[in-house]
């Protein structure tokens, strides 16, 4: 599913964020990447999302080498994965419902499909009663669940989360992700 072959990333500033990383994550696997801050965890995710280009090595996602993926194809790569960012990245002027529906608009889902799918996902993360609220009216934990709902709504083949629990108290951190399995 995700395979790194001798991937290195050196930023223009000369900082080497990833050094010769090789690993494989199979379908259905739950992988955790642990490390100190500044150890390159976020860079690794940026490489998967093709937000950054690898300096050397190959990254294979769903059997395709994305190293030479054309910029035009990048949006389609990103659609195959649901991403939860450490700062959640919700649209502040859109409601919870719209934030989730937005991800479906982008993949050109039918209105009927959107109307059915969004409430279902919101129920899954326990936010059915907050659908009409705006992100700034929610707690950190709730915002995170909105981000999670958005990542899940298009049934991606993989979920990638960049320190999704950093802003939360540790008591919540695992429980929220338990249902992903």
């Amino acid at each position, binding site marked *: 599913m995700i395979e790194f072959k001798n991937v290195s990333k050196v930023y223009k500033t000369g900082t080497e964020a990833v050094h010769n990383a090789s690993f494989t994550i199979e379908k259905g696997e739950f992988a955790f990447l642990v490390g100190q801050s500044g150890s390159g965890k976020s860079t690794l995710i940026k490489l998967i*999302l093709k*937000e950054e280009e690898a300096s050397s090595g190959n990254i294979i996602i769903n059997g395709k080498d994305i190293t030479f993926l054309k910029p*035009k194809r990048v*949006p*389609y*790569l*990103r*659609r195959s994965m649901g*991403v939860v*960012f450490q700062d959640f*990245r*919700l*649209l502040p*002027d859109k409601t919870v419902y719209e934030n989730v529906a*937005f*991800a479906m*608009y*982008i*993949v*050109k*889902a*039918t*209105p009927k499909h*959107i109307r059915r799918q969004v409430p279902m996902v919101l129920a899954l993360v326990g936010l059915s009663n907050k659908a009409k609220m705006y992100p700034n009216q929610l707690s950190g934990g709730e915002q995170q669940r909105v981000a999670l709902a*958005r990542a899940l709504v298009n049934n991606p083949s993989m979920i990638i989360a960049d320190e999704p629990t950093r802003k939360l108290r540790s008591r919540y951190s695992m429980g929220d992700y338990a249902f992903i399995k």
Partner: protein
Amino acid sequence: MRYNSFTYLIVEGFKNVMKNKKSSMTSLVTMICAMFLFGAFFAMGQNIDEILRQVQEEQGMQVFIKREATDEDIKNLKDEITSLNGINTVVFKSKQEALDSMKESFKDNPDVFAAYEGENNIFPDSYIVTLTDLSLAEDIQNKILQFEYVDEITSSNLTIDTLMRIAKGINIAILVIFILLLLIAVTIITNTIKLTVHARRKEISIMKYVGATNSFIRWPFMVEGMIIGIISASITIVFLAGIYSYLVSKIQASEAFARLGVSLLQFTDMAQVITIVFLILGMGIGIVGSRISMKKYLEV
């Protein structure tokens, strides 16, 4: 593109316009000013073209007919001239009419021409020929000279040349002004949309991360630019129509203008062209402006 995402993009475009009232207003006012100036010059150019056309039609040449020509020959000559390209009117002026007009010019001294009445009339018959296109004057003149029974031709080539040169100069000036205004409008629209885009850069980057294509992100901004373009085009047309009609009625009422013997175009004569040009221009500037201003923010 399926119906729903299309509506989504259009609705988003409208929302953008409403949400960014200040920058929308700035763009609107700028575009109205630029388009108004362009419209004013365009109307001026159209009128000058129209006046030139009217003057051209009156500009003509006098074709003098040889004395030995019979009535039949004279009639045939008219048919020959009429069959040429670029002829507007061919009017016969008999020797008697020529004499009468001479007497009219010398009416304080009517005796001068007394000796030329009837058989003694020294004036030849002639045709007054007017043209539809002055640039053909020389060519036509040469052709007429080759016809039988044509004695000589008098025309005012100098006036013709001057008129043609003026018309050409004005058209070039209008084109230059048009290009300048277009550049100004695009630059200003680009900058105003850049402000909107900058304010929403976070949203744009989020869209990119969720997998939106560039065109999906660009569309609402292009729609925004298009809406501003269409609204400013409409407002400009209303303004232009009002001011133009007022000015034309004032000018045509003036005595000095009446003496010139030409008439100006009504706004309705130009309305169709102006509307089409403005709408295309408005939308075009909006689209080009938003495309340029978004470039930087789409590279995530």
